[in-house]
């Protein structure tokens, strides 16, 4: 096969490359072009659209374009966060694929000078009873835990989904959140002609060569051949690298720093030089290597983990060297910054590559791919009757997407750092900032069922749900990151959904003042031509300025009143109930009225922070009744007695209408609550009371605590522990 084709460079791109170079490129140069022009690094299908995202706001210090986004949380502190996918590697080698995904995103955070304080993840698998799911789920979860637990960062929240569209392509999206001082943020922009370029971290081996091109190509039967391209993670090395980097960052030695992620040394050096509009010269003989006889090609393309590239002030190189020596981490001066605006690679006396950097970045191919709208979803068919309300509740609680994920999160260290304020499966993870009374709240959300049916509504809903989860935890939502997981963008229907997704995220983040500060795109999630459901995962971060109110929140008491904030449920189209009972959905997902979302959210946040309510949970997948079960029965181990009108009871209990919360209020505060809601003109309904045990609906449906708990808790262990 033609060497260009082998590198994923098509005819048109080959012609462009040759036009640029005006000579025959060396193999190393072809390798460099291939990874820099890959979907993974160049974002060639998505870049054109990504620039439309809403990325600004008072709170934003750094939007997309750096290793991670940075937002202001006052008092000279910032939060740094990003989400990234590691889908393909996790399918091939679930443990190592997921582990290195966590390692990679963590490096993006501490590269910027932030100490990681929390990890989250959004993972999706095929059907729970698909033969491969058990293997993939147990490997991925062990890998996520294995890495994060060892480095010592708590994994505080996440989401897990199952759907047949992931049978051949599971998703692993990992998010990391860190905290830094606002005057100690580090960027990747290189500067200072002649300044030393320094390599730190693990030695380079033949790992994952072509990992970036693999992540950009879809799977087929032949993908077995790609197998050795998976890397093994070394969380122990990461921990040492983390501590060494953070220590050096206190010493005014670093001009710029960049982790080596996808496409390793190539993309890190090119990106640093490109941002600074300078050139870079690399002497590969100086690179610490793990195996003998690595070629220039291999060194440039290796994706060995736990490595970083830095530009240092020359006077401080000795200081830096000593810091890394102390931590037992390799340190090598491997090149210098030049004024050529080229990347020049020298190995064993030969010039292996010499390429103008702009050909690899600004002038890389960019496509405005064709879009064709998918045909509309089938019309909603109302077919669910209320005869079996109790059975429906138990079935939904016992379904893969709703059931308890405790089997998963108990494998993640959630309490390390001793600042996790809610450690068991809540809407959002809350982590206190050490030595302060502030806390950060975080959540990951998306509903692929909605997104596949209507990409724009689904994207808006994902942002809104992520906002709601942050609100329910008592925090003010500040900004989001995202991971856009899609199929093949060369298919116009998929590209059209991608474009609509960007529109939806943008619309929602403008209205909610919830800007996008970082993110990642993962395309070609397809096997044998069959694509995953659109999965634009949204990761949100919010701030609690003073955690004192939390002491009296999250703990409903017997006798408290249960109140629905928002409208009465109606919308059963595209719902969980429909999917669980009929195995298919019809109609359109529920639309979000963003202004209403914002007003209700702000009102609920003030109720929580003023201690007017005793607990709060958003209403999403599964509708009102599932929220009540989750909040009162399954979390607080209490009962509830509610009544709803007998007309359309199923719609009221299971409808997935948006912008709604369930809250509990003590008898003392009920008057204040209702008068405040009235003043704000926010719709609300009293549903019933918190009771000692069992769920009672309208006096004719009773479900015992055991039945509920068993339905909720048993599904995943029954599959995984057998």
């Amino acid at each position, binding site marked *: 096969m033609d060497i260009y084709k082998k590198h994923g460079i098509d005819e048109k791109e080959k012609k462009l490359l040759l036009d640029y170079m005006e000579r025959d490129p060396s193999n190393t140069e072809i390798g460099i072009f291939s990874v820099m022009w890959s979907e993974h690094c160049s974002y060639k299908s998505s870049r054109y659209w990504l620039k439309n995202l809403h990325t600004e706001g008072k709170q934003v210090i750094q939007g997309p374009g750096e290793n991670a986004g940075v937002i202001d949380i006052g008092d000279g502190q910032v939060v740094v966060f990003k989400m990234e996918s590691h889908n393909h590697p996790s399918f091939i*080698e679930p443990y190592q694929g997921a582990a290195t995904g966590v390692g990679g995103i963590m490096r993006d955070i501490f590269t910027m000078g932030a100490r990681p304080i929390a990890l989250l993840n959004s993972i999706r698998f095929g059907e729970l009873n698909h033969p491969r799911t058990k293997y993939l789920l147990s490997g991925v979860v062990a890998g996520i835990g294995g890495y994060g637990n060892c480095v010592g960062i708590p994994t505080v929240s996440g989401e897990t989904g199952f759907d047949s569209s992931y049978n051949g392509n599971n998703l692993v999206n990992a998010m990391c959140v860190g905290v830094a001082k606002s005057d100690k943020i580090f960027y990747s922009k290189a500067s200072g002609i002649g300044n030393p370029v320094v390599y730190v971290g693990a030695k380079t*081996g*033949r790992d994952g060569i072509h990992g970036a091109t693999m992540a950009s190509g879809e799977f087929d039967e032949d993908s077995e051949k790609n*197998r*050795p391209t998976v890397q093994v993670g070394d969380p122990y090395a990461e921990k040492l690298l983390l501590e060494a980097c953070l220590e050096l960052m206190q010493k005014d030695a670093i001009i710029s720093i960049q982790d080596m992620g996808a496409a390793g040394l190539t993309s890190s050096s090119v990106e640093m030089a490109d941002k600074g509009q300078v050139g870079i010269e690399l002497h590969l003989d100086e690179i610490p290597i*793990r195996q003998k006889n690595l070629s220039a090609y291999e060194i440039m393309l290796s994706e060995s983990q736990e490595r970083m590239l830095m530009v240092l002030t020359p006077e401080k190189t000795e200081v830096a060297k000593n810091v890394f020596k102390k931590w037992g981490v390799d340190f090598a001066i491997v090149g210098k910054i030049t004024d050529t605006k080229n990347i020049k690679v020298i190995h064993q006396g030969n010039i292996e590559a010499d390429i103008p950097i702009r050909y690899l970045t600004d002038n890389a191919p960019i496509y405005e791919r064709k879009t064709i709208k998918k045909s509309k979803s089938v019309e909603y068919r109302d077919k669910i009757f209320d005869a079996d309300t109790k059975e429906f509740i138990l079935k939904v609680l016992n379904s893969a997407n709703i059931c308890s994920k405790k089997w998963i999160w108990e494998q993640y260290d959630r309490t390390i750092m001793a600042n996790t304020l809610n450690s068991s499966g809540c809407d959002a993870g809350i982590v206190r900032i050490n030595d302060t009374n502030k806390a950060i709240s975080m959540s990951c959300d998306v509903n692929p069922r909605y997104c596949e049916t209507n990409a724009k509504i689904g994207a808006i809903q994902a942002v809104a749900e992520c906002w709601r989860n942050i609100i329910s935890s008592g925090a003010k939502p500040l900004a989001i990151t995202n991971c856009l997981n899609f199929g093949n963008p060369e298919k116009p229907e998929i590209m059209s959904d991608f474009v609509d997704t960007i529109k939806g995220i943008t619309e929602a983040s403008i209205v909610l003042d919830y800007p996008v500060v970082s993110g990642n795109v993962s395309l070609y999630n397809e096997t044998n031509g069959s694509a995953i459901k659109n999965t634009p995962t949204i990761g949100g971060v919010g701030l609690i300025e003073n955690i004192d109110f939390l002491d009296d929140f999250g703990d409903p008491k017997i006798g408290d009143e249960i109140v629905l904030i928002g409208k009465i449920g109606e919308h059963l189209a595209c719902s969980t109930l429909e999917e669980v009972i009929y195995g298919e959905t019809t109609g359109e997902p529920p639309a979000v009225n963003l202004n209403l979302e914002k007003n209700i959210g702000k009102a609920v946040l003030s109720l929580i922070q003023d201690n007017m309510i005793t607990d709060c949970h958003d209403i999403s997948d599964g509708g009102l009744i599932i929220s009540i079960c989750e909040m009162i029965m399954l979390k607080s181990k209490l009962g509830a007695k509610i009544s709803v009108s007998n007309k359309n009871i199923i719609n009221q209990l299971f409808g997935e209408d948006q912008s709604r919360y369930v809250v509990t209020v003590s008898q003392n505060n009920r008057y204040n609550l209702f008068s405040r809601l009235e003043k704000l003109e926010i719709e609300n309904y009293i549903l019933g009371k918190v009771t000692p045990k069992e769920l009672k609906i309208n006096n004719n449906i009773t479900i015992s605590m055991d039945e509920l708990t068993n339905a909720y808790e048993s599904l995943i262990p029954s599959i995984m522990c057998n």
Partner: protein
Amino acid sequence: MKALVYVRLKSEVLDPQGQAIESALKNLGQKKISNVRQGKLIEMDINSHNIDEVKKTVDQVTKTLLANTVIEEYSIEIK
């Protein structure tokens, strides 16, 4: 019969455990030891006297369960 399955990381693959052991040995003053790699040794009894059948079985279970050939290689010994 008894089968021994040796599972090793492929030589190109990073072996963090081997590395850690090697540097611990260096710290203990063993300067002559290098290239430390850690693998697995899985032993089992198989209720059969047909050596070909046993070989086939063990090879198959190794491929499907004991080793991930993405990063590992293996060898089998029958006793």
